[in-house]
């Protein structure tokens, strides 16, 4: 669903998904621990190195950075003027502070590095494989089963939604006006999707039971760690420990 086709042959796509996911979380949390501006270039270099090794096209990352960037951009532009005490410049009635600029840089770089790493790992691992890897890492079966069914049916529900939306437009609904009529139409659209979803789920449950759902013992997940997985995982742990150590050292 999300896995990027052009990354299929990169070394990242051949790694054990369990190790990839744990590595991602270790690096992401170590990045979120950093608050020292001197460590930001190191985080950027590390992220760039991972990106180059992944074989993903730049457009893949940039396309997915659009929406969350709006929230982060709002903070990046407002923090220098609403926080801090040491003035560095003045723009009319606005005073830019040194502490505010440092906080902006910290937010921007941490966000960019964590989301890029997440996109690299998830761009080189199909979503289904991710869920199975989480399952192998002891994710409760209720959540794993639900996640796999959501992946399976999200396109079906999305297709239902698009078809209903098209028929609404053909009947003259634009959805551009604000008012109780628009909200009523939207509510009925959501209600219809809920009714269709529930009706479909009854059939799915019966079909799943016929195929043995709930009576079969879960098979092996089929993941096997290689020496390369362990080597890369060890390197990630060392890099994260180094980052945390430097943060503690510089912070004190």
């Amino acid at each position: 669903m999300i896995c990027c086709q052009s990354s299929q042959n990169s070394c990242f796509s051949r790694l054990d998904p369990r190790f990839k996911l744990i590595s991602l979380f270790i690096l992401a949390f170590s990045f979120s621990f950093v608050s020292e501006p001197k460590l930001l270039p190191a985080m950027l270099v590390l992220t760039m190195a991972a990106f180059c090794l992944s074989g993903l096209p730049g457009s893949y990352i940039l396309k997915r950075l659009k929406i969350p960037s709006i929230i982060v951009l709002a903070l990046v532009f407002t923090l220098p003027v609403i926080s801090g005490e040491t003035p560095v410049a003045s723009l009319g009635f606005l005073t830019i502070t040194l502490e505010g600029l440092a906080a902006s840089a910290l937010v921007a770089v941490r966000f960019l590095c964590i989301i890029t790493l997440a996109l690299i790992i998830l761009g080189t691992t199909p979503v289904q494989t991710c869920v199975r890897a989480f399952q192998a890492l002891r994710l409760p079966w209720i959540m794993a089963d639900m996640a796999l069914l959501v992946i399976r049916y999200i396109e079906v529900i999305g297709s239902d939604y698009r078809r209903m939306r098209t028929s609404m437009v053909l009947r003259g609904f634009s959805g551009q006006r604000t008012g109780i009529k628009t909200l009523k139409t939207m509510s009925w659209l959501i209600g219809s999707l809920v009714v269709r979803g529930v009706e479909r789920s009854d059939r799915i449950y019966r079909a799943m039971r016929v195929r043995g759902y709930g009576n079969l013992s879960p098979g092996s997940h089929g993941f096997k760690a290689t020496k390369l997985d362990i080597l890369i995982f060890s390197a990630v742990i060392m890099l994260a420990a180094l980052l945390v150590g430097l943060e503690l050292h510089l912070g004190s």
Partner: protein
Amino acid sequence: MHIPDGILPLPVTLGGYAATVGLAWFSIYMIKRRQDPRENIPKASLLTAVFFTASLIHIPVPPVSVHLVLGGLMGALLGFYAIPAIIIGLFFQAVMFGHGGLTTLGINTIIIGTPALLAHYIFRFRNTAPADPKRTGFFGFLAGSTAIALSVTIFSVVLFTNIPAHMDPETEMTAILLLIAAHVPLMIIEGIITCMTAVFLLRVSPGILDGV
């Protein structure tokens, strides 16, 4: 209303995960107490997919447009399944669209999941008397708007008390109140949508309102 990666410090993101593990454990414990916990999994999963799709609907609120969160409706219809559903939905939103984040998955679950559970309990008050459209609509509105109001409050407090910059308490409080005030139209819209959807379901398929 999703906090992206990179803004919150490590203790808050880890605390969010710890609280989410507790909330998920409680929900799964309640689900497993049923006679056949697998029976409702397809229904809960399909409703999760429905809410995931419906959350992409944009409602025009000039000069901008808002997208629906539907935490209240999820709580009302999914009950304890709402927590696994929200975790799954937030994970997919993070990996597919970049909404929210991975380190903030825990805190974002608390922001949307806790109010959803509250909405579940609010909506259950509907059953204290024979259900009619007015009663269903009233508790639907209350569940939808309360859920979003609580989500916005948690979101604003978590965001402005943890951004990596020193803000004086007065500015912090002003920012929190401004953000909450900016979301008042969304609280009303979510309330109306939840109310009208609940009334629609009461007329078309009332069994769905009994929850998963």
